[in-house]
C-alpha cells in the first residue's frame, strides 16, 4: 500500500511542477508581448501584474458556463478533458535531473510522442460537438495539421535515438555530458546533440510550432476567418482548459527539445535542475518571440510544406545519420 501512496504522491508533485510552469508561462508571454509592442502589459494585479494569471484563472472559473443548445452535450464536455489529459500524462515521464522523475520509463521519448497523438482526437471532437461551422472547420484544420506534422516531429527525433541507441530520456541526456571540442581541460563546445543533429533540431523546432498551432502555423484559430477555430463555442473553464492544454504542450515539447538536443540538465557551476529550467525557458521565450514577429502562412502552403519538404528532409536526415554511423563506427 505504501508504494502506491508514494507513486500517487510523485505523480501529484510532477503535475504541480508542470502546472506552476504553465501559469508562469501565461504571465511571461503577456509581458514579452507587451515588451515587443513597447507597452507595459498587465500592471494592476500585484506588483508588475505578477498575480495576473491567477486573476485570469479566477475570472474563467467564475464566468457563466454556456453549452450551446444544439451541441452534443456529452462530447462537448468531454473534449477539453481529452485535449488536456495527454499533457498531464507526459509530465509523469519527463526527468528534471538524473534522479528527479515521477516515473522512469525506459521508452520515455516514444511514450511522449505516442500520447501526443491523442490530442487531435479531442480537438476534432471539440469542433464537431459544438455544432457550429467555425468550430467544425477549425477542428478539421487543426486535426489535419497535427496529423501531418506529427510524422516529421517523430521522425526528426529518430536521429538522436539512432546515435544514443536508447529511448530512455536519462540515458540520452547522460550521453550529452562533457564537451565536443575542448582546449586543454576547458570545454568550448558542449557535447550536445544539436551539433551532431543540426537538421534534426531545425525540423523538430518547426514541427513543434506547427504541432501546437503557434504562429506562423496558427491556421486552426485564424481569427480573421474562423473566429477562434475549434474553441469558438467554448466559454468559462472549458475554454481555459483548451488554452492551458496548448501552453502546456509547448512547455512539454520545449522540455523534450532541451533533453534531446541541448544536453538537458548538463552544465557547469549551477545545480542541474536550474540548468534544466533555464534551457526550457529560453526555448519558450524563443517561441513567444516568434509568435510576435511572423505573419501567418496559408493553409495550402502549410500542407505542401509539411508533406513535400519536411517529410523528405527528415527521411534524408535519418539516412544520412545511419550512413555516417556505419562509416565512422
Amino acid at each position, binding site marked *: 500500500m505504501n508504494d502506491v501512496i508514494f507513486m500517487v504522491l510523485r505523480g501529484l508533485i510532477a503535475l504541480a511542477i508542470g502546472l506552476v510552469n504553465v501559469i508562469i508561462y501565461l504571465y511571461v508571454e503577456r509581458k514579452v508581448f507587451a515588451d515587443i509592442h513597447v507597452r507595459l502589459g498587465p500592471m494592476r494585479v500585484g506588483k508588475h501584474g505578477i498575480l495576473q494569471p491567477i486573476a485570469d484563472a479566477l475570472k474563467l472559473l467564475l464566468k457563466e458556463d454556456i453549452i450551446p443548445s444544439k451541441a452534443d452535450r456529452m462530447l462537448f464536455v468531454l473534449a477539453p478533458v481529452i485535449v488536456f489529459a495527454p499533457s498531464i500524462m507526459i509530465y509523469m515521464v519527463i526527468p528534471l535531473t538524473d534522479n528527479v522523475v515521477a516515473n522512469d520509463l525506459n*521508452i520515455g521519448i516514444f511514450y511522449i*510522442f505516442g500520447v501526443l*497523438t*491523442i490530442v487531435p*482526437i479531442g480537438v476534432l*471532437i471539440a469542433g*464537431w460537438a459544438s455544432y457550429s461551422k467555425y468550430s*467544425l472547420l477549425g477542428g478539421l484544420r487543426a486535426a489535419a495539421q497535427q496529423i501531418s506534422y506529427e510524422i516529421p516531429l517523430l521522425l526528426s527525433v529518430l536521429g538522436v535515438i539512432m546515435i544514443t541507441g536508447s529511448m530512455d530520456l536519462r540515458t540520452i541526456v547522460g550521453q550529452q555530458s562533457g564537451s565536443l571540442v575542448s582546449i586543454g581541460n576547458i570545454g568550448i563546445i558542449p557535447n550536445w546533440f544539436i551539433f551532431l543533429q543540426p537538421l534534426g533540431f531545425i525540423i523538430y523546432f518547426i514541427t513543434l510550432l506547427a504541432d501546437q498551432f503557434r504562429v506562423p502555423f496558427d491556421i486552426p484559430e485564424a481569427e480573421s476567418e474562423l473566429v477562434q477555430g475549434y474553441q469558438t463555442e467554448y466559454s468559462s473553464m472549458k475554454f481555459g482548459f483548451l488554452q492551458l492544454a496548448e501552453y502546456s504542450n509547448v512547455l512539454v515539447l520545449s522540455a523534450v527539445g532541451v533533453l534531446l538536443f541541448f544536453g538537458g540538465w548538463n552544465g557547469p557551476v549551477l545545480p542541474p535542475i536550474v540548468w534544466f529550467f533555464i534551457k526550457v525557458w529560453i526555448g519558450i521565450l524563443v517561441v513567444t518571440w516568434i509568435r510576435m514577429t511572423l505573419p501567418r502562412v496559408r493553409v495550402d502552403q502549410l500542407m505542401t510544406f509539411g508533406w513535400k519538404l519536411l517529410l523528405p528532409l527528415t527521411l534524408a536526415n535519418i539516412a544520412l545519420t545511419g550512413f555516417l554511423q556505419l562509416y565512422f563506427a
Partner: protein
Amino acid sequence: MQNILFYIIAVIMLVACWRVATTKNLIHTVLAAFIVLMSTAAIFFMLNAEFLGVVQILIYAGAITIMVLFVVMLTTAGPRYEVTHDKKIKPSMYLSTIVVFATLVFLVSNIQWPMGTTVLQLEDVTETLATKIFLEYLLPFEIASILLLVALVGAVVLARKE
C-alpha cells in the same frame, strides 16, 4: 492492487465494447472504440509491455481513431445523423451467431491454456523486438509492408478515377 486495477479496466472496457455495438450516433461509437483501445493499452502497461502499450496508443488509439473520425465526419449526413437498425431478425443472423459462439466455445475449451504467468526477464524489450523483426523475421515483415504499400497505391488509384 494489480488485480483491482485490472478489474476496473476490464469493466470499463466491457462497457465501452457494449456501447460500440449499441450506440446509434456514429461519433459516439468511434469514441467508445477509442476507450476500448486505450484500455487495451492500459492492460499492456500492466503486463510490463510498455513498448506494445505505446504502439497501441500511437497506432490504434491515435492514428486509426482519427482516420475513422475523419471518414465519419466527411461522409455522413450532418452531426445529427443516426444509424437506423433493421429490427427484423433474419434466420441468417441466428445461424451466424450460433456458428461464431460454437467456434469460440470449442476453441476456448480445447486449448491448453498456460497456468500462471512468468515475467520474462528481458534486458530491453525494444531491442529484443527489433532483433526479432529486423533479423529473424525480416522477410515476412517486408512482405507485409509491401502489401500495405500496394493497398495504399490501390486506394489512391481508385480515388483518382473520378
